[in-house]
């Protein structure tokens, strides 16, 4: 019996879970959801007096605060969470592969499906805003980083709680949208605080946010959030009671 390399184990886990995650209903619902920012981007681009500021605000508040986290929540929380709920986790858990590989594969599966469903509509919206390449590049960069970070967080959430979508929505709309807007320490613990900082930093639009870290720190922190979430997920996976 040959040893399975960690990378191969990640790919195998990714392949299985990706197939499980892609359902017709999810894809249709999320594609329709993704059309909304495209439409709004087009409208804002034509009607705003300061399209750059309006566009950056729209990307920050619509794309980064709602579209990306919600789509990431749906896929990432289901990636391992569904396997734990329905009992199929055993088919990954009881294999001679590392827990890291299972985490990595599950995270990759959710990111691979979330990225095109969010970054493409966000990029199209940024193009339709018609304010130059800075916003387009900032949108793509920030969206990718935010997707990776949110997938890490919601992957963990799926393994930690029952009904992760409800908990996740509470996190998105209460913690990230409300608490983090009023409390600086909370903003430092929210993905949106860092992703907005990248958008404003790259476009030069100043929203006078409560929490404004530099772009470098923001990028670094999003990567840290992703890595820490995955580390905790792996730790949790090694101690979980597998049904």
């Amino acid at each position: 019996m040959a040893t399975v390399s960690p990378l191969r184990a990640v790919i195998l886990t990714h392949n299985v879970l990706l197939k499980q995650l892609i359902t017709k209903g999810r894809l249709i619902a999320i594609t329709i959801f993704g059309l909304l920012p495209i439409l709004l981007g087009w409208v804002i681009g034509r009607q705003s007096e300061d399209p750059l500021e309006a566009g950056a605000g729209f990307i920050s508040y619509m794309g980064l605060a709602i579209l990306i986290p919600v789509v990431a929540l749906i896929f990432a929380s289901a990636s391992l969470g569904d396997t734990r709920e329905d009992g199929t986790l055993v088919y990954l858990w009881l294999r001679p592969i590392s827990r890291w590989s299972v985490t990595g594969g599950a995270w990759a599966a959710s990111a691979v499906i979330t990225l095109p469903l969010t970054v493409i509509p966000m990029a199209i919206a940024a193009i339709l805003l018609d304010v130059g390449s800075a916003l387009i590049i900032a949108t793509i960069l920030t969206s990718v980083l935010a997707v990776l970070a949110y997938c890490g967080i919601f992957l963990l959430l799926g393994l930690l709680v029952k009904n992760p979508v409800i908990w996740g929505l509470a996190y998105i709309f209460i913690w990230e949208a409300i608490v983090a807007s009023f409390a600086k320490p909370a903003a430092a613990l929210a993905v949106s605080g860092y992703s907005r900082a990248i958008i404003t930093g790259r476009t030069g639009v100043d929203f006078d946010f409560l929490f404004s870290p530099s772009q470098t720190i923001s990028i670094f922190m999003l990567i840290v959030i992703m890595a820490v979430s995955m580390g905790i997920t792996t730790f949790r996976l090694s101690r979980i009671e597998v049904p």
Partner: protein
Amino acid sequence: MSPQPPPPPQSQTVNHTVNMIEVSNASKSFGNVVAVSDVSFQLNAGVTALLGPNGAGKSTLFRMLCGLTTPTSGTVKVLGRDARQDTPVRGKIGLSPQQDALFDRLTAYEFVEIAAKTHGVENPRTATNHALMLVDLDTVTEKNVGSFSKGMRQRVKLAAALVNDPEILILDEPLSGLDPVQRNRMIELFHNLGSQGKCVLISSHILDEVARIGSEVLVIAQGRLAASGDYRSLRTLMEDQPHVIQITTNRARELGAALLQKEIIDGVTIEDETLNITTSTIDAFGRSIASFARELDISLIEVAPMDDDLESVFRYLIEGK
């Protein structure tokens, strides 16, 4: 053609200095509920049936063996290792879990192949085809397992458990949902695997099934190991207990009186056309009841054992009544 297990790989060795499965004073509680209580046993090559009613703790014991859950106290070792901590030993275990869940969007081939690949099987394509053939699913390899019947789902789980040619096979109710022909073929396969030196542990709550699965039996009830050893000894033990049989007849009172007079029953209660008799000589009763009724010109409408179920066996083994 009878199903033949894959030939044992030459690289695979069995460490004979340790038991293949060793459970020492293992207990598992979920809050106040004790699922497994102070269970100890050792197993080596061969087929062993784990017999117990639903909720007896069979699946929890299997989950502990595979490392899916940790014992609250005691130790559980597979090939001398703890499967929860030891990654390589997990490659030597094949588990067919009780739950029906599968990756429903995968085809049967993909489901088994992913098991082969994650086990690091050197030729996953050949191993997958062989495992599917062993369970008679080689004609439906491209169908999604989500569209499978219960019996087919059961067999695809078995194929996935067999694909890495494991030293230890842990099969949780693997025959449930199978038709009689498939059931016979799978039992034959289990025996072939056992005779190849593999440790095959199979759970069931059906007594007749256990009689055919293996001569070695572990009986678990209320989380405790109630009996273990050769099935025939267990059967003899069970035959010593008084049996309760219900007879529906057109002349219950006359038949009851006559049976008591002949001393082939110990006691009787009568309700309308139904007799509930108790006998310690079940074989003699079985041989004589039909001819006896014929002699008396009494019609027997139904003769049904009331205690030929596991609950009564366990009650007898545990409580002696």
